[in-house]
């Protein structure tokens, strides 16, 4: 079923150079590694090249600029493909004609609205987090002389992410997908000497590998249906029409399991919190802003199958499963985030929960696309999910960098106070004592000491929570509204729809809790009193991303949710910016449909008032006497302090309950999985190994020793050496041969 035609082939323009977006970082990988190996410890290398950081940065800037040029050419309406060549060609017996056909896997670049959006997210964040890394990694003595490894793996990862986004077939998507997995593994295990990091790296790779196995099976099934994995062929309407819907749904379902693993969704979510063992820039880039989006990207790529007229109504079950997995994860991860004390772990569970939102949004969009007459809503729902992906990536990247900034300064402050106590101590010591720079119990009251970080954290949290007008608000409203829109039609969707609504309140609670515990109240330790911002590399990306998050209203006004999902939608042609913003405000706050009108205000109420209110009551507090935060944060601190005084309550009963323990134990998933792996699988393997040694090999040994005995008895003359056996064998051959000769 070869032969495509869904996509315009483009032979010229900036797309010819698009391959360099991927190749540049990929080539930088060996270069940085090699230079780092040679110049390790050299002062010029450390100071001027930042141990590779300043080699990686221009590369990432170049990739970003190229990406921008590409985006400008393709944003909005156009989509296209640029074929580079054939990678594999092979023969295939057509079962109907019994003839051998020539088949091939190609290589190429494919661009459409989804690509454009993810390309921007990936290249932009890679560049910003590279800047951040220079500030974060190169000032910590624990990283001395191994930062080149960090930057090499960092650029290789960027190459994988950008490659996955630009690939023109599911095969190359998968290839780059695995490349990212490798880099994730290497970077989680960056501090290889720590057993916890080694364990976390293995866990991450293995858990995602289980998903990948299903992804491979799904791809194989898809290939079998279409005879190709190129988007050009599989998205072609004529080809989709010829495929059996049941088989297609199965293939896509298998691929979805791969997405579940990569995007850390229930039940393959266990690796993401442990992945925080990696350096913070890695958490920010890979485990929050880019790689974990790969699963979402894969599901988003399935849109054309659902939107095909011939598939109408046939794939809704899969759409429901996608939404339901999202719903379960959204609530579960948010609940576990309630009890986390580690700053990065809260963010990890928050990432999980927000990705689950996007899955629910995509599920709803796919359901709408697969239902005749709902195409109009499908576009908006799909756009909302993608928009949330964008907002979340920006906000979460920023939150992780801000958390990194806090942890970094906590470390430094700890180091300094340590020095005040006993002079002349080797500074390596502070990595071995039990002070936890990531624990929120050691922080508090940092709002006045780290104004830029606190602001970034505030805006990022607000964006994740969906506080009106900021960042994620616009997209989260869209996801909740569309989930409910589907629920009104298909009662099964009440489950994910209720989950995302409940999740909004939970997000409000745990994000506020995190900010308040870190930045409001009095400093809880001496270390927290001595914290201050110092290196210039860290705040730059924070400030940039703060503005991006704040300005997402402009993107909303640019009808992001429409053009990001509808290739036919001409960019800017429909409405100008002001009209667009007015339309968006009307649409959200004054929805003509009574149900959605009420729903919006319920969501805002629980997400922006109930959740944060509870968090303020429990964790609010004013700063230390005489200290003041910036004017935009001081009212929030004051409010939290007032709520805490008036409405504060004792939650120790809840905190000591069994449910709370279960949440601290991450609902026992990790324990069970570890037990299953170690007891069942490894146990079985050990038994198998013993069986192989004793029974399979034992049989042979018995035959051997018996024949040896016989031979020594029959022919007592020889010594029992190898010659003996050869003679035996030759004799045996003769006998068997004679027997055969008689028989035939």
């Amino acid at each position: 079923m070869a032969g495509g035609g869904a996509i315009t082939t483009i032979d010229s323009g900036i797309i010819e150079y698009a391959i360099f977006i991927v190749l540049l970082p990929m080539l930088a990988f060996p270069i940085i590694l090699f230079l780092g190996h040679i110049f390790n410890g050299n002062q010029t290398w450390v100071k001027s090249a930042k141990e590779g950081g300043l080699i990686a940065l221009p590369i990432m800037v170049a990739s970003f600029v190229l990406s921008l040029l590409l985006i400008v050419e393709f944003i909005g309406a156009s989509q296209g493909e640029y074929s580079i060549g054939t990678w594999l060609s092979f023969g295939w017996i057509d079962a109907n004609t019994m003839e051998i056909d020539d088949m091939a896997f190609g290589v190429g670049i494919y661009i459409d609205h989804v690509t454009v959006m993810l390309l921007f997210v990936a290249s932009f964040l890679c560049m910003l987090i590279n800047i951040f890394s220079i500030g974060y990694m190169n000032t910590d003595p624990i990283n001395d002389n191994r930062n080149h490894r960090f930057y090499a793996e960092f650029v290789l990862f960027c190459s994988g992410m950008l490659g996955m986004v630009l690939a023109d077939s599911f095969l190359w998507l998968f290839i780059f997908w695995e490349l990212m997995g490798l880099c994730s593994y290497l970077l989680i295990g960056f501090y290889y000497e720590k057993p916890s990091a080694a364990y976390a790296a293995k866990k991450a790779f293995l858990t995602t590998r289980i998903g990948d196995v299903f992804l491979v099976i799904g791809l194989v099934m898809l290939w079998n249906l279409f005879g190709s994995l190129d988007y050009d062929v599989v998205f072609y309407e004529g080809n989709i029409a010829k495929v059996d819907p049941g088989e297609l749904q199965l293939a896509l379902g298998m691929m979805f399991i791969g997405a579940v693993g990569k995007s850390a969704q229930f039940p393959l979510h266990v690796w993401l919190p442990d992945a925080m063992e990696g350096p913070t820039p890695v958490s920010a880039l890979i485990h929050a802003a880019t790689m974990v989006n790969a699963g979402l990207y894969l599901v988003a790529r399935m849109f054309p199958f659902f939107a095909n007229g011939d598939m109408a109504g046939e794939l809704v079950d899969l759409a429901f499963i996608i939404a339901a997995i999202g719903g379960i994860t959204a609530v579960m991860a948010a609940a576990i985030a309630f009890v986390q004390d580690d700053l990065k772990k809260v963010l990890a569970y928050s990432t999980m929960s927000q990705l689950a939102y996007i899955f629910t949004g995509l599920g709803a969009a796919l359901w709408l696309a697969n239902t005749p007459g709902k195409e109009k809503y499908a576009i908006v729902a799909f756009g909302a999910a993608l928009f949330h992906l964008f907002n979340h990536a920006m906000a979460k990247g920023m939150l992780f960098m801000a958390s990194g900034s806090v942890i970094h300064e906590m470390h430094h402050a700890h180091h300094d106070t340590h020095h005040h106590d006993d002079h002349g101590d080797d500074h390596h010591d502070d990595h071995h004592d039990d002070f936890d720079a990531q624990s929120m119990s050691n922080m508090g009251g940092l709002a006045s000491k780290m104004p830029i970080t606190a602001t970034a954290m505030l805006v990022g949290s607000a964006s994740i929570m969906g506080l009106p007008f900021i960042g994620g608000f616009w997209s989260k409203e869209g996801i909740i509204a569309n989930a409910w829109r589907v629920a009104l039609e298909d009662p099964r969707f009440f489950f994910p729809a209720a989950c995302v609504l409940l999740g909004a309140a939970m997000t409000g609670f745990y994000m506020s809790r995190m900010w308040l515990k870190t930045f409001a109240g009095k400093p809880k330790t001496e270390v927290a009193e001595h914290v201050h911002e110092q290196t210039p590399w860290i705040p730059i990306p924070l400030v940039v991303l703060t503005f991006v998050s704040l300005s997402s209203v402009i993107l909303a006004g640019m009808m992001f949710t429409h053009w990001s999902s509808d290739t036919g939608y001409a960019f800017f042609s429909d409405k100008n910016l002001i009209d667009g913003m007015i339309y968006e405000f009307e649409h959200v706050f004054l929805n003509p449909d009574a149900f959605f009108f009420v729903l919006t205000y319920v969501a805002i109420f629980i997400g922006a008032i109930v959740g944060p209110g509870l968090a303020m009551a429990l964790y609010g507090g004013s700063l230390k006497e005489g200290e003041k935060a910036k004017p935009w944060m001081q009212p929030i601190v004051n409010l939290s302090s007032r709520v805490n005084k008036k409405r504060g309550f004792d939650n120790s009963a809840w905190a000591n309950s069994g449910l709370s323990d279960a949440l601290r134990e991450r609902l026992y998933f990790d324990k069970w999985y570890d037990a299953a792996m170690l007891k069942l699988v490894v146990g079985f393997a050990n038994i198998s190994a013993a069986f192989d040694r004793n029974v399979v090999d034992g049989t042979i040994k018995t035959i051997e020793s018996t024949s040896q005995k016989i031979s020594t008895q029959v022919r007592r003359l020889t010594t029992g050496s190898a010659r003996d056996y050869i003679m035996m064998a030759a004799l045996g051959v003769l006998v068997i041969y004679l027997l055969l000769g008689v028989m035939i």
Partner: protein
Amino acid sequence: MLVIVPILASILLLLMTSRLNPEAREKFGAPTRMAAFIISLAMFGVTTMMFLGQIGDVGWNNIEFNNFEFKESYVWIEQLGITWTVGVDGLSFPMVWLTTLLMPITIIATWNEKAGATYFPLMLMLGGALIGVFVALDMFMFYVFWELTLIPMFFMILKWGGKDRKYAAQKFFIYTFTASVIMLLGLLTMYFLMDTQTFSMQEMVVQASGANANGVWLGLEVQKVLFIMLMLGFLVKLPAAPFHTWLPDAHVQAPTGGSMMLAGVMLKMGAYGMFRLPISLFPHALETFQYAIMMIGLVSLVWGAIVCLGQTNLKKMVAYSSVSHMGVILLGIASMQPLGWAAALFMMFAHGIISPMLFAVCGAFKHHYHSMEIGAMRGMAKHSPWLATSMMFGWMASLGLPLLAGFVAELMLMIAYWDAYGWLIIFPGLVLAITAAYYLWSMQRTIFEGGEATQPPESLHGDPVPDIDNSEKVAMLLLAAFTILFGVMPWIFLDMMDMWTQSAMKFLFRLGGV
């Protein structure tokens, strides 16, 4: 030429050194090593130039089934019709090239081994015999070289092996020799049953296909018996479960160079033989036993992987992983798709590059830490970064990371397998996960952990922890470079393999198309 020169040279070197006393023989180690290295390098140069077109001008991607290039034929034993006939095609050339590639690399990797004067000549003899197997077009000649490969390997294990080398060498020899005797029986029976008796493989294929066109050559029952006899010899060599137990013993006891050649090329003799003889001659029997071959392959694949997970010895684990990977070849054959056969051929080739790297790593581990136990050494990334990097690269290549050679074969196999056997694909899928599990787990316990607090293993007796030396580094880098090369550009050899499989299928099963 490629066959004769190394064997003659090795015999010459062996003769020269055999008359020396032990001390002089020690001194003679370096010159024989250099001689062996130069000869093997020259052979690599010749095959590479053959491929690139400097020697002969062959359209490699257009060689059809049963056509051969660089064909030479001389009468050997006239009375019996035995000839010295050699030639290469899309099936054998990648293997020949691989052998010539691995010989110099193996010599480099074991450059500093204190091996005396006979080790490297034996290596040369092994290489020559292996090439002989791959290029032989005469059945008799094929069998002679098939058995000849055993001799240098037997002595390599016996003389330079580990603690139980005597047992392992005998087991290796008897096991595979018995199997090849059964194969010989099959070959001879076939010879006597033929209408026009010939030892020429090319003519046999013509004769068989002519008879198969209007019926079944020799009758289906005979075909089945012969097919089983021939396959038995090749299955033991591959090795496939349940005949695999000689492999771990042989590998664990064999010296590094021996292991590298054993895993890299010798195992592939089995797969090569299957394609060259039973499959090319008995397509009907192949169709009959298709399912059985698949089951043997599946059992090897799954069983090998599970047993790997239960190993505590690094080299044994890698040896069992070979069993597992060789199962893929049988699955490819059983898929009965050109794609599956090409996957099998590419698996032979890819595994031929990757597994020597795995064994080189194991050898270096043993060499430097005097231990093979997983967990004897932790935090290798700190103490021996080069070895740790090589190990991680090899492990990752072996578990099928994309853009490295192994992935191409696995991907192709999965596609062909799903088409033929549907949901049984869950087992190869499972193996993908188990493979990742045992490799990652072993890395967690060797490369990672420990850090500054790591104590060197007890087997070092307090000596400082060494990293690999320069010759080992060069060998690892070369193998890694070729793994990447064939992972990124698989078409270099895949295209000719594809041509061979497509034309073979058309020829054997009378299919149309293209």
